[in-house]
């Protein structure tokens, strides 16, 4: 039997994605095992890939210490918004089903090297980490929890910005979250903001940028206006490192860029300087 007559056998090969991970930044193929062990940090270019909120909480907090707050707070549809691809409520409901998340941030009480904190971790999988009224409620309520318990507040941001489907209500979340954080800061309670890839638009222009300490992960995209909007406005090419964590640090807006593997210890050390 010649080779071309050989009957086709169904492929039982392991899928490619199970063996290799592709770095979203440098496109290198990294063995999946190595990628996972490195907490999704590229060994070739040091890009820190996005984590889910659960993965992040596991990395940052003491085992078993995280107690979620306001888990039932979910999206609202104040405008009854509908665009070309359908109603927002349907899209958000599908996102809830798909991700198992009720909102773009998970908040709760936790311990970091034994220090009691209130922690918020955004999750980009929930509508691009966009800031809706449910997101704002969780951030505000967690700030109030930190104030009531006099515990430091730490927020990890990962967001494209405002949630357009909630229109002006989304914009108001910037004011609400900052108001709650201002009260915390006025009461002398530490607030640490950690900007991860990406932190842009209305989130960068509100709670993410007003930490007592602003930290970021290497190479995270951080900025106010979108790159394309700026290029169209000023009609020039932007530098390659524009709106990276490194660019922001160089321009004076970040205290420190912290590697993922160092983050927990770094936070604990900083909190001790803050008297925790």
């Amino acid at each position, binding site marked *: 039997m010649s080779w071309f007559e050989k009957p086709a056998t169904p492929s039982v090969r392991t899928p490619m994605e199970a063996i290799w991970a592709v770095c979203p930044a440098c496109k290198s193929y990294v063995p999946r095992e190595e990628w996972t062990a490195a907490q999704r940090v590229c060994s070739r270019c040091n890009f820190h890939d996005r984590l889910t909120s659960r993965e992040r909480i596991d990395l940052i907090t003491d085992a078993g210490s995280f107690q979620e707050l306001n888990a039932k707070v979910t999206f609202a549809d104040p405008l009854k918004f509908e665009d070309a691809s359908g109603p927002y409520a349907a899209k958000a409901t599908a996102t809830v089903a798909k991700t198992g998340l009720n909102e773009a941030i998970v908040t709760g009480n936790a311990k970091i090297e034994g220090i009691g904190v209130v922690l918020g971790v955004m999750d980009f999988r929930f509508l691009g980490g966009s800031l809706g009224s449910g997101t704002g409620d969780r951030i505000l309520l967690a700030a109030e929890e930190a104030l009531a318990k006099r515990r430091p507040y730490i927020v990890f941001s990962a967001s494209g910005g405002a949630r357009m489907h909630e229109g002006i209500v989304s*914009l108001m979340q910037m004011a609400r979250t*900052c*108001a709650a954080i*201002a009260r915390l800061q006025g009461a002398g309670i530490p607030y640490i903001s950690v900007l991860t890839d990406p932190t842009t638009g209305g989130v960068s*222009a509100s709670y993410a940028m007003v930490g007592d300490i602003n930290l970021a992960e290497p190479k995270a995209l951080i900025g106010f206006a979108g790159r394309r909007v700026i290029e169209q*406005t000023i009609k020039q090419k932007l530098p390659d490192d524009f709106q990276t964590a490194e660019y922001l640090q160089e321009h004076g*807006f970040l205290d420190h860029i912290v590697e993922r593997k160092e983050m927990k210890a770094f936070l604990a050390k900083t909190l001790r300087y803050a008297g925790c």
Partner: protein
Amino acid sequence: MSDIDFTKPLTPWQIVQVARMSGRPLIGDYIKGMCSDFIELHGDRVFGDDRGMIGGFATIGGERVMLIGHQKGKSVEENIKTNFGMANPEGYRKAMRLMRLAEKYHLPVIALVDTPGAYPGLEAEARGQAEAIAKNLTVMAGLRTPYIIVVTGEGGSGGALGIAVGDTVLMLQYAVYSVISPEGCASILWRDGKKAPEAAKAMKITADSLLKLGIIDEILPEPTGAAHSDPRAMVKTVKAAVLKCIKELKVLPADELVVRRYAKLRRMGSATL
């Protein structure tokens, strides 16, 4: 926009056109028309003096206030100078400096909002547009003096909000206030900028919608034919409304003012509270 019939209800997209119309009163007209005195205070003390955002001491109907606001121009030359009312970080930082000065001197702040948005430029990013706006949000929330906002034309997203957190928000009948321009929203969610009229409707950016949503406190009616048809009458309406707010708020002790403001923000635009 001679094709707009003001005797009939306007569509949201028509209202966007009116809000952007040249001839609509700008901050200079309000200063001239409602202030018996104005001393402009320049500069952010760090980088420069943004002409897209101005402010200073003002006297309105005998009340001394701090007046701040976006500045658009009436001509091409003026618009180049004022950057079409799109402030840079130094504009927001100047505004913050004046807010704090107002607090120190116990002057109410009057903020006039009229901007397409904060300027999206390379240097604006380098100098921290996001940080400048964010910082203002925290300062306004806790400012121990009355803070009154009037959205007079375009309330363009974070660029508007950067001076618009306060005790009372007034909005002109044909002003708009939104998280993104209808064109921007259409190009992202409809993948077609020409669907802006649909986006304008879906986003509920007009004064009557915003009042129902609890984002603004009062709509200031415009003269028949809109503000540009009778700027003097418009300025008079704004002056009277602002004076009424000042009188209501200035009797409140600062502690109570700040507690009330937080309570308001806590409920405003909440999903659950």
